């Protein structure tokens, strides 16, 4: 009953973590972010206070309102710069 959480690019470096498993106790992305933001200033800045935060749930673009459940993969990352 876990969700898989991923961090990419500058987020991975800033948060010191590429991925982690968390209990699926959050109804939506917003509530997951709220909990993560309590870990410290870098978490709060990257996820809670960041207007440019990009979110994906199960490989699709998502938003703070997107519902999450056990088995989902949630990813946080900065704006993309490929091509």
């Amino acid at each position, binding site marked *: 009953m876990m969700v898989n959480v991923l961090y990419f*690019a500058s987020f991975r470096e800033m948060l010191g973590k590429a991925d982690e498993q968390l209990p699926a106790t959050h109804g939506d992305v917003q509530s997951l972010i709220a909990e993560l933001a309590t870990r410290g200033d870098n978490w709060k800045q990257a996820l809670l206070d960041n207007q*440019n935060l990009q979110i994906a749930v199960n*490989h699709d673009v998502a938003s703070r309102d997107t519902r999450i459940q056990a088995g989902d993969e949630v990813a946080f990352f900065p704006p*993309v710069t*490929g*091509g």
Partner: protein
Amino acid sequence: MAHFPHIKIQQEDFDLSTEIARLREGHADIGAVVSFVGTVRDINEGDDVAVLELEHYPGMTEKALEKIRLEAHERWALESSVIIHRIGKMYPTDQIVLVAVSSRHRENAFYASHFIMDYLKTNAPFWKKETLPNGEERWVDARLSDKDAEKRWK
């Protein structure tokens, strides 16, 4: 995971002629092939660039690119298309990305390839990190102009 024969994420370089031949294979009614190759510039934001490293989100990348590719096929009458994006370390003048589209008439291939690149730039989960000649590393910032480019197609 789904199979995406027209999407390739790879470390190795690609050969343009080989990829275009593959794209055209079995389509004798193609009249136009437009291809875009993105390459590593030796300068970015005024600084020399020594190394460019491309990171991506495996799984989401393929899904995002296939979605963009299929949307191009819905919008324009195309014969075939392919997207190749390299990952890992690259150096100035290296090829990074190929978008190639074939169609009966040229206009569709021009528009579709431009559309795919504009959407790839803002929707596909790739991130670039530059290393300067002095060893300093920095993440490349997203460009506002890329957001504007995407909006043109709405």
